[in-house]
């Protein structure tokens, strides 16, 4: 950085390039037909939720089981003093429960103003920016949680509707 700053010419070129790239990104962000999805894996298949629902992603941590709840609720985790219900997404979608691995992550989601929950996934992949024309109707959904399919390269990513995920029971 300091070298670039010392030689004015390339520095300026670099700046303007960065600026135009940033402008381009902003332009895309504001375009209505683009959405950002957080993709993750469940039982080897790709799934996604909209990034605006994602509050944060944390590693697996101690879970305190809560009695008298269905099996797909793992329990409660403590996140900086907040007590948050942890939903086992595999279980909820009827994909069978597995023990956490090194790649297991908890996505902390927020559906409404106060509806916070932790969602357990096998692994988190990336944030995708997809155009609306990449979306396909879901090929039926057993739990009603899959809202649409997103065509990405050769694969179809199942876009989950968060409210349904939080409410439905497999």
């Amino acid at each position, binding site marked *: 950085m300091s070298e670039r700053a010392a030689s004015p010419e390339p520095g300026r070129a670099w700046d303007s390039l960065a600026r135009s790239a940033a402008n381009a990104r902003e332009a895309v962000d504001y375009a209505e037909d683009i959405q950002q999805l957080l993709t993750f894996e469940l039982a080897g298949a790709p799934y996604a939720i909209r990034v605006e629902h994602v509050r944060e992603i944390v590693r697996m941590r101690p879970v305190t089981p809560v009695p008298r709840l269905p099996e797909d609720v793992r329990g409660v985790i403590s996140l900086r003093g907040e007590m948050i219900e942890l939903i086992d997404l595999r279980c909820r979608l009827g994909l069978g429960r597995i023990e956490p691995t090194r790649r297991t992550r908890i996505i902390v989601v927020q559906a409404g103003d106060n509806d916070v929950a*932790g969602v357990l996934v096998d692994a988190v992949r990336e944030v995708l920016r997809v155009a609306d024309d990449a979306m396909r109707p879901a090929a039926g959904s057993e739990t009603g949680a899959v809202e649409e399919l997103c065509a990405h390269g050769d694969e179809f990513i199942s876009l989950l509707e968060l409210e349904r995920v939080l409410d439905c029971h497999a």
Partner: protein
Amino acid sequence: MATRGGRSRSESKADQEFVSESEEILERMREDYANLDDQRASGAEVDPDLVNRLFRSAHSFKALAGMFGLESIQDLAHHLEDILDGLRLGRLPLDSPCVALIDEAIHTFANLLESIGDAEAVAAFNAPVQELSRRIRAAATQTTAGGDELASLNIDAALLRALTEYEEHRLRENIRRGRHIMLVSSTFEIMSFDEGLSVLSDSIRAMGEVLSTLPAPGDTPESQIRFSLLVASDLSDAEMRERLEFPDAEVISVRIGAAPAATAAPVEAAAPEPAPLADAAAASPSELESLRSISETVRVDIRKLDELMNLVGELVIQRAAIGELAVRLVAQSKTAQIGADLSKIHKSLDRKLKGIQAAVLEVRMVPMRQVFEKISRVVRALKRDLHKDVRLEVSGAHTELDKLIVEELVDPLMHIVRNAIDHAIEPPEERHAAGKPSQGCIQIDAFQRGNHVVISVADDGRGIDRAALLARAQALGLVTASADLSDREVLNLIFSPGLSTQTRVSETSGRGVGMDVVRENVMALGGAVDVESIPGQGTTISMTLPITLAIIQSLIVGVGSQRFAIPINAVHETLLIDSREIQRSENREILNLRGEALLLRHLAREFALGDAAAGDKQFAVIVGLGEQRIGLLVDRLEGQQDTVIKPIQGPIKNVRGIAGATELGDRDAVLVVDIASLVEDALSRREGA
């Protein structure tokens, strides 16, 4: 926080601010008005300061409504202010029908506040508010003519002209009452005159009313200043001179009073007349004064205090980390000195953190007085509406409770008091026949017991009619006709939903929603309700509540591999028991606890944790709120800890038996057991059902 049903309206932040500030002012107005009305009705002399305070409240209210652009309220407040101004200046007589208008205006304000945020409902008030304003305006314009009794006074006319309108009114009023009027003058050092003057004023106030304080002209040395106080008193000037411990003071009679007989009320001369506190300066209606009086306290959203509490909690955890670091440093010879220093800092940090914790907790605490004041107002209204002669006695108004609890407590308490007046207290004839004083009595006590506050409402009414209660419960199918209930169980039926023993439904109470809601509300606060009743002698309903919701001590217990927190306020004792001590009755396990049969429940089974390989020895934690208790069997006791109970966030909001979760030092979430529901389930459930 529990939300009460029935009120759904959108409230902007500004609206909320307006409502909460207005409520405070209205509260004060209601109280002052009630006192004023009482004093007037009893024929006693009305404390001029009451009228002044009402005037200032109306004035503040007007300013506030103006700030928030609520014109109809502003308008009404303005007219109310006119009336009160007339009253305080003696332009309107106190027995004028306009006093009743004050009450009406206060009610209208209260109704309007309820609708803030709902533009349509507010608009619906326009017509009645204008009508009321018109009536007030009409009432305020009738004035009383003042005779010129001032001309006969032995006083410099210039001094009289310096009096404000209010002061002049007070002077006339005192002359009318036949009091002695005198001028007390004294010279003070200019450097310290304010101190000397206030000592003089205070000592005069003990004997009479200071009508005005005026600087007196005269040939005083430059370093001194002379003041004259216009005083009204039942004492003569000679008596005043004698009693005033102020050697320099000069007392001149302005008017010799008559014996207090002229007026209609031959007032009990000995009755402690409310000391007229009206200080001339304080009563002057300057804008500054009245605005300042609202903002003596800072209103804080309780959620902000919760945040503060959480931050303090996190600090406590970090403090522990510093402590550990210090120990590690001390253990190594190279860093021992640094470690020792750090350890000192850690200790002082610890002390200060505890201080902060205590301070934040204390901020959340409010005295029960606030609730009691609201209730005494309701009692006053009920007395009138139901034509019952009832006396309300309260004790323990200074007992403090967490703000959140106090808020949630108002409705249940109000309901109990209403019930007592409406149903329990008999009509005077009936009381007379039973050999009771015709005036009924409701006694509310609040007192602290350990880390609980007990609030009891006792009446000396007819007591609960067991037979009628049982019959109602049977008619409603709440109990079978053959059920053999103990007296306690019968009494507890009053907490059943939909049950009201009086068939008559009144405005005041009893519409099916009743004691069951009371119990639900109290249980939601982690408390319990008990009832005791002696036929013909009265009923006592007591609510036992935790002092604070914020930080509670919990007993940490272990079951299998899991730990649970049990709020210590629900724990009566813990016992180490041998499994051979456990007896059976049907499928229930019971323990002989000092001759009483105590129902036992395994926490592991309650929560389906699978039966741990329990050894011969187990711990029984005797828990319960109010009178009902059970023994919870657990594997281990792991000591007591400060816990902050937090709700579990997520789609599943409520799990019966779990009150929330708490974080222990090691960052693990530990579930907090909801004892009230466990006890209730255990005692009501049939085994195997």
